[in-house]
């Protein structure tokens, strides 16, 4: 199978990685659930401080790949893997890499917002408190900063002690993003972050994603191709556990190189 991957050695419309340092690098990665291969021979680089979207049909492996990026498969004993994943040059499976630290550096937001059953303030402060004692004033500052970064501060500043469950779905999702931001991640993984939200809340989350990329690397999995086209800088199309085509979103959505990509993004029968 041909894989259209963009490398520094190629020019023109391809991704020029010499211009963007990679935040994450996946090398010859394969993953199996028992006997069933979920990802095979996957190599790609995720540019730093850009939004990269993984698209593909259900079961193509995009969420599996996303979860592999912060080792969420570790507890599943049926999962086996080959190859490696590197965060800023460090192998994430290396013995010295602590999983808790990895997940601090690579945060994850899921499809359904999962605020903890506590106040808005405590949700955001939760991760900070896990890291050890911190002066209350400092916690206050980080909570405010995280809520502002998640574009939620103005909506909740007068009710920080209210239950997180009193927020709307869209607000809860932004709260979860604030909770993740509070611990200072480098990468944010988003698994269908807006699919359970109404269109306006979805747009707010998309706007937030766009704003966050000035300081974070974002990786987004979505079924919504228009959403991938709207918010991402680069798009990777996966099918049957393989990377089919990977390139600048502008190119992929106007002039994909491969018929398989064209068929998927235009809704044609394979």
């Amino acid at each position: 199978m041909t894989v259209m991957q963009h490398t520094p050695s190629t020019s023109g419309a391809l991704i020029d990685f010499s211009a963007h340092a990679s935040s994450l690098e996946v090398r010859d990665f394969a993953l199996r659930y028992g006997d069933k291969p979920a990802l095979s021979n996957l190599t790609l680089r995720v540019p730093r401080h850009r939004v990269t979207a993984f698209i593909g049909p259900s079961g193509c492996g995009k969420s599996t790949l996303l979860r592999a990026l912060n080792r969420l498969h570790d507890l599943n004993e049926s999962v086996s893997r080959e190859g490696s994943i590197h965060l800023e040059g460090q192998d994430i499976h290396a013995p010295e890499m602590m999983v808790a630290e990895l997940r601090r550096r690579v945060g994850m937001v899921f499809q359904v917002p999962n605020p903890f059953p506590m106040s808005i303030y405590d949700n955001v402060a939760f991760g900070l408190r896990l890291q050890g004692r911190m002066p209350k004033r400092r916690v206050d500052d980080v909570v405010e900063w995280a809520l502002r970064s998640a574009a939620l501060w103005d909506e909740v500043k007068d009710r920080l002690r209210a239950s997180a469950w009193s927020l709307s779905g869209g607000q809860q999702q932004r709260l979860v993003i604030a909770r993740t931001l509070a611990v200072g991640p480098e990468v944010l993984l988003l698994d269908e972050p807006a699919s359970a939200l109404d269109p306006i809340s979805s747009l707010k989350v998309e706007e937030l994603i766009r704003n966050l990329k000035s300081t974070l690397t974002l990786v987004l999995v979505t079924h919504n191709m228009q959403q991938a086209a709207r918010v991402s800088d680069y798009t990777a199309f996966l099918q049957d556990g393989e990377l089919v085509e990977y390139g600048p979103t502008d190119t992929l959505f106007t002039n994909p190189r491969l018929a398989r990509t064209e068929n998927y993004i235009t809704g044609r029968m394979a």
Partner: protein
Amino acid sequence: MDITSDIHSQHISRQFNHELEELKTHLMAMGGLVEKQVQDAVNSLLDADSSLAERVVDNDRAVNDMQIKIDDECTRVLARRQPAASDLRLVLAVIRAASDLERIGDEASKIARNAIELIENDSGSRGFVEVRIISEHVRRMMRDSLTSFARFDTDLALQIVEEDQKVDSEYQSAMRSLMTFMMEDARSISPVLGIMWILRALERVGDHANNLAEYVVYLVKGLDIRHTNPDDLDEEVGDR
């Protein structure tokens, strides 16, 4: 990736297939009408048939209406389907092509209006040879550009781009010989100017046919060659 002319009928949504097919069908119908307008306008001059020329002027409204209808259909597809890749390129190419066809319609109307004046003033047949030669050339370009659009044929489209350069040089040469007529005989200035306007309109028709051909390359290959030097075209398009 090059696409083929049947690609827009392979969507899971048959309604979407139908909508895109309709766009192409309506564009071809508009192309057919515009082609006939140019032919009738030129024939009205060569056959001194002012009633035919008047019909061409009247029919321009039908051409304009077709452009509005196609634009409406394209707007609907963009709003409702948010097309991507070759579907998006088809919609954009159709919008642009309809605009060029409408302009060709305007040129046909200009030719017909000048023909009416020349016929009424009984201006003779000076310059008819040039009109005949250039009109045949640009009509062939128009026909080929519509065929290349219908068949997604980029080889034919690239030939049209080359042809346009030939039309441009035929036009320059005709202009020079008509200038000589005007210098030799001051009484010929007014009728020869009328012929010059007609030749100018025909040369513009060639330019619009050339544009249509460029849209075909964009549609099929996703390559915008609008401002590419004709000498570099084969290399640029061949690479893709």
